[in-house]
């Protein structure tokens, strides 16, 4: 009698668990493709802001490389490179870089660089800077980040790739210096990294698409 009651409990719970997880598994199967497509499109949208769709014809989403980087103080960790090609020719690369020099925590950026070495655009993906001060680096909050468009290593000269307070050409915002300084340095280092490697980067085989 006792054992039966224990066994019934166990069986009951077992059935529910199987039914529940079966339902979840079924839905997952049903939605998996759509979700993957959503993710792809979300990333593409932010990449397209930097490198417009009409400039390339390859699958920029899968044509990626992840390179270890060292020796660039403005960048920490590996850099992911999204490569844009048209008719097989390299057009531009989008570098996903991270800087640790922010006021609080890491700042993740997308830096798009044309093959001629000019900046096609910069966007902040993720940061934890002081709200109201450092968060002006976001495109939604101010246009400061657009100031990089068209710049290159010679324009301005390398030693002037800095905020104004440190003798450079880029504005800091009132009340905050550290955040813009970190972004400027990160963009500069992204340019420095990309410059000599622009051709070799496009020759490597892409990473296998990440399983999701």
């Amino acid at each position, binding site marked *: 009698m006792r054992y039966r009651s224990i066994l019934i409990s166990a069986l009951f719970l077992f059935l529910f668990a199987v039914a529940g997880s079966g339902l979840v598994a079924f839905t997952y199967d049903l939605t998996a493709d759509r979700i993957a497509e959503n993710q792809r499109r979300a990333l593409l949208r932010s990449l397209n802001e930097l490198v417009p769709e009409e400039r390339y014809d390859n699958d920029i989403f899968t044509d990626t490389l992840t390179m270890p980087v060292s020796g660039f103080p403005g960048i920490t960790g590996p850099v992911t490179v999204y490569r844009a090609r048209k008719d097989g020719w390299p057009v531009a690369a989008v570098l996903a870089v991270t800087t640790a*020099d922010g*006021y*609080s925590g890491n700042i993740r950026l997308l830096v798009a660089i044309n093959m001629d070495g000019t900046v096609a655009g910069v966007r902040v993906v993720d940061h*934890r800077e*002081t*709200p*109201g*001060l450092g968060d002006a680096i976001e495109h939604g909050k101010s246009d400061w980040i657009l100031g990089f468009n068209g710049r290159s290593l010679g324009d301005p000269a390398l030693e002037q790739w800095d905020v104004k307070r*440190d003798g450079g050409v880029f504005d800091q915002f*009132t*009340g*905050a*210096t*550290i955040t813009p*300084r970190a972004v400027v340095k990160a963009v500069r280092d992204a340019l420095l990294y990309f410059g000599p490697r622009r051709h070799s980067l496009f020759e490597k085989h892409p990473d296998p698409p990440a399983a999701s």
Partner: protein
Amino acid sequence: MQFPTQSSPYLPPVNDVTRLMVTVMLAMIPGVLCLFWFFGWGVLFNLLVASFAAVGTEALILRLRRRPVRPTLGDGTALLTGLLLGAALPPLAPWWIPAIGASFAIAVAKQLYGGMGSNPFNPAMVGYVVLIISFPLQMTLWSPPHGAGHDLLPLLDAARLVFLEALPPGTRLDALTMATPLDAARNDIARNLTWSEILQRPLFGSFAGRGWEWINFGFLIGGLWLWQRRVIHWQIPAGMLGGLFLISALFYIADADSFGSPVFHFFSGATMLGAFFIATDPVSAATTPRGRLYYGAGIGVLVYVIRTWGGYPDGVAFAVLLMNMAAPTIDYYTQPRVFGHRDAGDDGND
């Protein structure tokens, strides 16, 4: 013959809330004078606007709560909150900064919790934190101290700037403001300058920042006077300065290039104002003798941590509020040994 009855004791009381508050206000004078000397008229505007806003808000809310207005205003606690907040604000902040801060301090941090004596957090520091979270830009614009290469704004220009937000002709806001030594030091550390290099800059005065050394010294003098008058207990300032000293000395000894010295931390920012005037606010602080020491030490350590690694330049306000939250717990675990009991907390029924 018939006589009135009441419970003992009957002797005339020896203390009075109003007198305590007035004593604290008097003790602020040296520090406030130094502030005024180095930062000019803006300091005065801050104190005035904050006091008016604090007292006015208190009166308004007391009316709404249908409590007696006049006797409660007479205790001086609202005025003191306004003054403490005013003394902590950047000197050329627009007038609505102290106004919003003081109103919030009184309305939300004090009256919503039930008025004097019931607020778990220090109202002035709540006001300050609300301001720095909401208006970080205005709250980080300090004018350069007197003698650091700039002249102070004359009275009229300062008033126009504060009340009309009109800059004097031919100047830019950036020219009128600069970071405080604490903030500047963090910037410089971030640029990999060493402390010896940082201290070379004119802003840093003799050891802890031009002007700020004297301001902190002024509040230290006032604070010692308060202690001598038995208005505050020694444990909280001692705990806070001790905690700050220990942790800053530890890091300073380990790496003198990247971390400020204890002296720098003692005499910059709101250290002395915090230690003697803000952390000692009895309502929100720990109350047992040992608890006060821990409470102060907690503030000291947190001030250092927030200054060094946090997201905002000075940490006194955040540190005080954080420890306010811990105060009841500290009190609970630091009850003194009751006379005739063997251990603290022993209920004597063993």
